[in-house]
């Protein structure tokens, strides 16, 4: 049986995921995406993983959503409200979504997953820290390098080259 918090988080997550994709304004869509990410953080708390939940809130709700909102504000006003879609493609997309939901859902309901419950105590978050610094330390170093190089790459990409903009439109 599910509890009330689970139902509330499930409704929040799925409704705001749909709203993020379907809202007319991209800014409201970005705010709805924050709702989805916050709902996922709530699920992490329900799963007794407070450390991952805090990380999710700090990284996703705190920084990524704000970064997305600022990028949206850099874009012209008409483009924020523009919604060009092929209706045929839209119905095909909805069909694809329903097929994936029904087929994967049926697969999961018929598998042995439905009988899995646990009475064991949750993993202590101190173990995660130990894992990071012992078994996973090479991955941690590689992740730090990937993060710093991608941020440098993003800054180089987004840098403004003065005088280049006019000749790029000569298609």
């Amino acid at each position, binding site marked *: 049986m599910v509890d009330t918090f689970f139902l509330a988080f499930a409704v929040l997550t799925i409704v705001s995921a749909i709203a*993020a*994709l379907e809202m007319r304004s991209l800014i409201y*869509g970005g705010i709805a995406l924050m709702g989805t990410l916050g709902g996922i953080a709530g699920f992490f708390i329900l799963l007794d993983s407070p450390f991952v939940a805090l990380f999710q809130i700090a990284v996703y709700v705190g920084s*990524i959503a704000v970064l997305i909102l600022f990028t949206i504000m850099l874009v012209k006003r008409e483009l924020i409200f523009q919604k060009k879609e092929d209706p045929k493609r839209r119905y095909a997309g909805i069909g*694809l979504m329903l097929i994936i939901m029904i087929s994967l*859902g049926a697969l999961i309901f018929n598998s042995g997953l439905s009988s899995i419950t646990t009475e064991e105590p949750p993993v202590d978050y101190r173990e995660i820290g130990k894992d990071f610094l012992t078994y996973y330390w090479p991955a941690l170093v590689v992740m730090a390098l990937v993060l710093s190089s*991608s*941020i440098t790459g993003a800054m180089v990409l987004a840098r403004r080259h003065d005088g280049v903009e006019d000749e790029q439109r000569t298609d």
Partner: protein
Amino acid sequence: MSNELIDFVIVSVALLAIGIYGLSVKRNFIRMLFAVEIIINAANLNLVAFARFLPHSGGQTFALFSIAIAAAEVAVGLALIIVAYRMYKNIDVADFRSLKG
């Protein structure tokens, strides 16, 4: 704990399907990025749910790695959006002609 593993997996499947719908239908670059974020979050939810029910700390560690890499991916994606917007004055992926081979 009253919730079962299958409840979390079903929510994750629903989020995955919504994300795939967004990726296949939307032509706005920023909305496609939203869809990618939703799919990544569905994957993270699955990782943490299985880690809780095993129970094993590996799933949480992997979810933390995944969140950090997703942050890097969003930074690069938004920089690409800014560059493309500067070049084409638009964020519709159908207009990005030089990306077609």
